[in-house]
């Protein structure tokens, strides 16, 4: 495809930087509880957890708090390698199993929202960029800007009030009560809709902007002078170039899956990873918090690598300006 030696070199350099970031994240996550004011045990285990003195001693040796820092770090990394993210004393379960349980649901509905956001947002965005002077293009753009300027949780809250409290069309809680498909769909309609609207507006604005800027380039004019009809210029030339930044952005979406989920799950009382994190915040359950942060970071880094690879494959100009 478009990859060349230069682009490959660029990718390698980026991956090195990602690894470096990950190491720093590891360090921060490792050091934060141990450097904080207060008892390290409380910082490592979470607050509001009652521990007998014997348990405290056990934990001290389990965490290796008496050994030098670099040894602790080594042990920490080893545990991570075995996918042991620690134990949550609040929820009485290993962090990794908690995460796996909850993550599936979150992935499900956010994945659906991302896909729907693409379907709804990209096409109109392209059209709005191509025919940017029409009234509906201005109208939709204003709407998209309005939606994108609202903090996501705000929109969810407003939707919640209108559709759940006021109209009562959708249920409030009780997501796990039954495994009935219709019940699940009923619960998920609102959160997926809100997320979709958000993703769609952003996709719309980006696609429109990309098409607008491609339209002003010289090559569409050249191709026009060669007798290619307008619709072929849009589909064959502009679309392909305009969609590149959007694709890389969507790849990044998969990395931020979980952080986006946080507020949605709080507002709509869903039982996914977001609400897990929220409970951990409320109860200061640090093992869950740090474990989730690590998992999210890994996802983000992988998403970034995916996005860089896509960029290199699709756009031969990547890596030339460094």
């Amino acid at each position, binding site marked *: 495809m478009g990859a060349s030696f230069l682009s490959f070199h660029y990718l390698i350099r980026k991956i090195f930087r990602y690894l470096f970031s990950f190491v720093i994240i590891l360090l921060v996550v490792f050091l934060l509880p141990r450097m904080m004011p207060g008892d390290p045990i409380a910082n490592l285990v979470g607050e509001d957890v009652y521990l007998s003195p014997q348990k405290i001693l056990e934990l001290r040796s389990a965490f290796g708090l008496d050994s030098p820092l670099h040894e602790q770090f080594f042990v920490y990394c080893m545990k991570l390698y075995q996918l042991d993210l620690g134990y949550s004393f609040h929820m009485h379960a290993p962090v990794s199993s908690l995460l796996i349980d909850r993550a599936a649901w979150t992935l499900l509905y956010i994945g659906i929202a991302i896909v729907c956001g693409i379907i709804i947002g990209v096409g109109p965005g392209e059209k709005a960029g191509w025919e940017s002077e029409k009234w509906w293009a201005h109208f939709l753009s204003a709407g998209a800007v309005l939606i994108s300027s609202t903090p996501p949780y705000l929109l969810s809250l407003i939707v919640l009030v209108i559709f759940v409290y006021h109209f009562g069309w959708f249920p409030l809680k009780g997501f796990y009560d039954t495994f009935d498909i219709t019940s699940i769909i009923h619960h998920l309609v609102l959160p997926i809709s809100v997320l979709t609207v958000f993703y769609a507006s952003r996709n719309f604005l980006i696609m429109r902007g990309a098409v607008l800027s491609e339209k002003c380039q010289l090559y569409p*004019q050249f191709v026009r002078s060669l007798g290619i009809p307008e619709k072929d210029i849009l589909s064959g030339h502009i679309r392909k170039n305009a969609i590149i930044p959007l694709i890389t952005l969507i790849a990044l979406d998969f990395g931020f899956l979980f952080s986006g989920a946080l507020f949605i799950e709080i507002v709509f009382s869903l039982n996914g990873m977001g609400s897990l994190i929220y409970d951990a915040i409320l109860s200061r359950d640090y093992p869950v918090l740090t474990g989730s942060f690590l998992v999210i970071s890994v996802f983000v880094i992988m998403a970034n690598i995916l996005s860089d690879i896509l960029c290199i494959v699709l756009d*031969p100009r990547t890596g030339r300006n460094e």
Partner: protein
Amino acid sequence: MKKNPLLQVSDLSVTFQTNGDTIRAVTGFSCQLDYGICTAIIGESGCGKSVIAHAILRLLPETALVTGSVQFKGKDLYSLSLEELNAIRGRQIGIIFQSPDRALNPTYRIYRQIDVPLRNHQVVPEKKRKDHILTTLRNVGFSHPNEAARLFPCHCSGGMNQRAVTAVVLSLLPDLIIADEPTKGLDSLRVSDVKSSLLKVKDEGRTLLLVTHDICLAQDLSEELLVMYAGEIVESGKTQDILQSPMHPYTRGLLKSLPENGFIRIPGSAPSYANMPSGCRFQDRCAYASERCNNNLELLNKNGRMVRCHLFC
């Protein structure tokens, strides 16, 4: 019997409306291109040359007001439907754009840049397409067309992209080729490359309209010459005639400004296109200006040459 001209432009005027200003980029431009003849339009940057090239193919934006007529092979290009126009664009009239780096689609390989319009116009049957593309690439100067075809514009030098753009246009085998500033920003080696490709085009019998600021290029390639200043034609006629004995003061000043003639600058600068002076547009910079220059003047016919100057009334 004299054949009808290939392209006949009559009284073409282009006006742009922007933010309350009226920019008269081209005023009253007329020319006639006969089959097989190379005509050159020379003038300073910004005198409206490229606007004419784009106006011929109706490539100007909607904010441009175009009056006059452009007849190609007897058909008025401005009264054609978009479909009919697209059949002519590229296939019968092709423009070699300036700034080749930006004229090429950055995500297409060179092969595809040529292939897409070729497919659109169905110039050659499918089986022969690849050979046709490679032959065209070789003709414009690529010694290894196979490798060149696989490159992206961002991996090519400016000169290579220039050749690629030329290849794209030539591959469609158009009857009229408009070369818009083909040597802008190129060093002398590249300039001679461009010159030889254009000479080859002429040898094949095609009609060439050369838009350039390079007088030497115009001299080597063209038979007919049009000199433009501030959107108007100030002198036109046979190239050799004009360059040996220029009539209009601007043409004389242009020739004197060549390095071999002394590098003497024409004092002053071009008038603002929003506020044109009435009468002759060159009078502020003209050594021979007088009272009469305030009156508008048509092109005068002096033994087959057209001049717009009161000195020749």
